[in-house]
């Protein structure tokens, strides 16, 4: 993979050999973005788009045009983290009986753990346990890791340097979220102080099962 293209910002002065070619017109750039997003089943970053398109293209602007063009259509252009993808409109799901993929049924513990990671990320295992009041079995987190909905984030700079967990773009893509900031009810939960990690006064017997 080469970074040569993305190393040159779209508007920047280009070398002689590059400037021989003008960037294609925006309508053409939009076609290009359309073809790439359409063909790829996984989200494509602007950076990746830029590296594939001719020099001087502005994939960000092209994506914006494309997104507008597909508004209200059977297929939509959606943002997933810092990448873009095309997905069918959710109201047409009923047509897709054949395509439905049976997802592994998640246990209640796994679903709760997933929600806690999504809303509290980056969050340590101990913090998850404190919130749920029980120890988190290894299998639960492993399952989420395996599904690539969750990954290991930075280590927390506290004694023991515990690992933290964060949600992935695959998770965002699966639930149709642009970013983790768009999680339903996130603002309200934050405003209500329910996403705080309040240390217990004195010692509480909760959530110490895992420690």
């Amino acid at each position, binding site marked *: 993979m080469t970074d040569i293209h993305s190393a040159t910002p779209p508007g920047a002065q280009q070398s002689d050999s590059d400037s021989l070619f003008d960037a294609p017109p925006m309508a053409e750039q939009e076609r290009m973005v359309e073809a790439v997003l359409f063909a790829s089943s996984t989200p494509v970053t602007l950076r990746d788009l830029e590296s594939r398109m001719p020099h001087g293209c502005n994939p960000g602007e092209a994506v914006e045009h494309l997104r507008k063009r597909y508004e209200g259509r059977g297929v939509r252009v959606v943002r997933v983290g810092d990448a873009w993808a095309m997905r069918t409109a959710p109201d047409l*799901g009923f047509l897709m009986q054949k395509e439905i*993929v049976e997802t592994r049924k998640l246990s209640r513990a796994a679903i709760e753990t997933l929600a806690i990671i999504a809303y509290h990320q980056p969050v340590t295992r101990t913090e998850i346990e404190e919130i749920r009041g029980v120890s988190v079995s290894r299998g639960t987190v492993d399952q989420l890791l395996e599904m690539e909905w969750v990954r290991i984030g930075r280590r927390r700079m506290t004694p023991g340097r515990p690992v933290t967990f964060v949600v992935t773009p695959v998770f965002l893509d699966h639930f149709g979220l642009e970013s983790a900031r768009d999680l339903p009810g996130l603002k309200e939960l934050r405003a209500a102080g329910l996403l705080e990690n309040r240390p217990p006064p004195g010692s509480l017997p909760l959530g110490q099962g895992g420690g």
Partner: protein
Amino acid sequence: MSEQNLFHEVTSQSVEERLAAEALIVDVDGFEGPLDLLLSLSRTQKVDLRRISVLELARQYLTFVEHAKELRIELAADYLVMAAWLAYLKSRLLLPPDPSEEGPSGAELAAHLAFQLERLQAMRDAAARLMGRDQMGRNFFARGQNEDIQRIRTVTYSANLLDLMQGYARIRTKDDFRPFVMDRDSVFTMEEALERMRALLGFTGDWTDMLSYLPDGWHKDPVKRRSATAATFAASLQLVKEGRLEIRQNEDFAPIQLRSLDGDR
């Protein structure tokens, strides 16, 4: 009040409530720990979790545990730990606060428990909302036929003239080839130096020239002397790091001196 208690006053309970209460007991395995049980019990108060009576909740929990004991249901240890803690909390909530007592007040502890219950409930609701969202592969779909990028992999191999000649030299000189081995005869390792110094440490309370630690027979030959000096110096630094030695040098190129710290302890 306590009259609403789950297990007391059974006579005043409706059949439905009684069944629910028994279901709680029978289903103790279905609970994900004491906090989960507390959350379930709190629903019988039919109030906003913010207005929950922790005292009442503690009573319900303790009754639950007692009842479970009567039925000879084995409760996991963390349920009993929670019971003990709630009994303590109950006493602190009921007794007038003792200003001489240290630690958080009963009210603070109760508030935190209420916060934890509310937070757990909030996460459950959030999880339900999350799973209720449109999901890929169920409500919306990705491209069915992934024509993703074809990767054209070009591998170029690199080798320069030096590689080539060394390769050739390696073959042509195979007969007199001897793998490069360090001549260990005149090498004193840091491990050896460490071992030697640890044994000698106890004897020096005063500043001593580091060179006096060199093993016998390593002073004369300059190669051996250099190796032994380096190893002993490195070992000294390690011992300084461990807090067993002090090291000093009065000026550039002056003798390096050591002093044991073991005696001070």
